[in-house]
């Protein structure tokens, strides 16, 4: 290009815009992030660590890890199965199925919790039967898990579907002609091709699973030491005016967010992955 300057702005305008973007990022995003850590340490390291070693905090961490450890693998399995069905085969209703997979993104987290109360709550479809059989779902761990599964449902699938669509099925077909079985094809041919996309989807799914608030809040019942996940524990502490403790627990979630962003942008950088949100 002999005249590169006609398709860009003059230097003062460029600098002004960069400064403006920097200000937007600082005011909108960086300020809240910094505030989490500053508020957490306002009363010193001692209070910070005492808040984290508190029994209710530890049980909240355990519950959050448990819910993620069950819901993320299940949704990953679903994501792989759905992507396999949708991209390796052509069938009637395929486009509809792809849109239905995205459905939970359009559902408010509160409604994602409400639907389970309507199914399994004491006045729900199976309420009386559950009561009679002494099975607890709402206000207990199973409710927290299914609410988390509902909101994190699409993440892996929506990551894998466009990826596997673009890769086509040639390599799998070649493997078949060479005599490979189904499981062998998936493990030796497909999986190596999709591993970064899969990791990306699992990463986003996990971040949402551990941080989910609205859906879990509706089904949890807020029983301290029992059905409070980490985000709910933060809420309880905050509402009890224990601000330093609330922010100390919030730092764990903020660190999770930072690790997620770091790994996410590393995958994008090294694999030429397009950035996606949601």
């Amino acid at each position, binding site marked *: 290009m002999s005249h590169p300057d006609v398709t860009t702005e003059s230097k003062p305008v460029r600098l002004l*815009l960069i400064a403006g973007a920097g200000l937007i990022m600082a005011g909108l995003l960086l300020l809240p992030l910094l505030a989490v850590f500053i508020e957490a340490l306002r009363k010193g390291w001692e209070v910070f660590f005492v808040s984290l070693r508190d029994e209710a905090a530890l049980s909240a961490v355990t519950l959050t890890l448990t819910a993620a450890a069950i819901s993320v693998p299940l949704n990953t399995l679903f994501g792989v199965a*759905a992507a396999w069905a949708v991209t390796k085969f052509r069938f009637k209703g395929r486009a509809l199925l792809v849109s239905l997979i995205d459905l939970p993104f359009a559902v408010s987290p509160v409604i994602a919790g409400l639907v389970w109360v309507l*199914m399994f709550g004491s006045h729900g479809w199976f309420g009386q039967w559950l009561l009679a059989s002494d099975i607890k779902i709402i206000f207990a761990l199973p409710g927290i898990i299914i609410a988390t599964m509902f909101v994190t449902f699409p993440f892996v699938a929506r990551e894998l579907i466009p990826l596997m669509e673009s890769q086509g099925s040639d390599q799998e077909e070649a493997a078949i002609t060479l005599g490979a079985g189904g499981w062998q094809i998936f493990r030796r041919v497909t999986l190596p091709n999709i591993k970064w996309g899969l990791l990306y989807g699992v990463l986003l799914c996990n971040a949402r699973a551990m941080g989910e*608030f609205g859906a879990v809040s509706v089904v949890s019942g807020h029983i301290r030491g029992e059905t409070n996940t980490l985000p709910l524990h933060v809420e309880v502490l905050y509402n009890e005016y224990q601000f330093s403790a609330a922010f100390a627990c919030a730092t764990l979630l903020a660190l999770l967010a930072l690790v997620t962003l770091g790994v996410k942008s590393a995958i994008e950088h090294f694999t030429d992955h397009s950035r996606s949100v*949601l």
Partner: protein
Amino acid sequence: MHQRRVIPGFGLSLGFTLIYLSVLILIPLAALFLKAAGLGWQEWWNLLVSARVLAAAKLTFGASAAAAALSSVLGTIVTWVLVRYRFPGRRLMDAMIDLPFALPTAVAGITLTTIYAPNGWVGAYLAQFGIKAAYSPLGVFIALTFVGFPFVVRTLQPVLEDFTKDTEEAAAMLGAGRWVTVRRVVLPMMLPALITGFTLAFARAIGEYGSVIFISGNLPMKTEILPLLIVSQLEQFNVPAAAVIASAMLIVSFMLLFSINLLQRWLDWRHR
């Protein structure tokens, strides 16, 4: 295409997908709509036009639209800078865009409240001018802007990256100044992506709960959003009312999602 299926696993993968989708998503959503349908039209109508629901709807949709609009403006500036300029810290800026998505909503909620409360870093400053940020509709607007911002940037970014500069060169050759070129050539080309980003941010904002309920103050008729109204109906064991409000919200959300899909399909078709 009815060729013989060579790749194995069709029945297994599709069967598992359909069962999982039905059990986890479709049947529970059907339960919601059935519960709401148990009430007659008249009751639906009475509920949805009751003063408290109307006030919550006005705040939810109004603040969501205003926040999505501000996100669109801020997002356009940031995307432009990220795509078109090279400067130190650009990759960090790019990575930070998704913070509102990665940061759990409850954390965002208590943090924004602390910053914008009357004794907070920004809140105290605003209070000098008599502006109440937290515990007012303005607080809801701030939280929703935070939440919607990444949707605008991540929708605009790939589109702007794909623009070749020949149209801009042509405009410059025909004598247009840079500002005229941007306003008359570049912005119109970005408009469809901008509308998509706006709608995504808007749709997300309508359902947002965690980042709003701390900063809003939750006063019925004043700073109560629709998702919170659903929760409070549920806590008062008024399940049918919760189901009706939720169903109405879902219908609006699905229509928004549907219109985004239509818009995308139309754009793909036009680009061919």
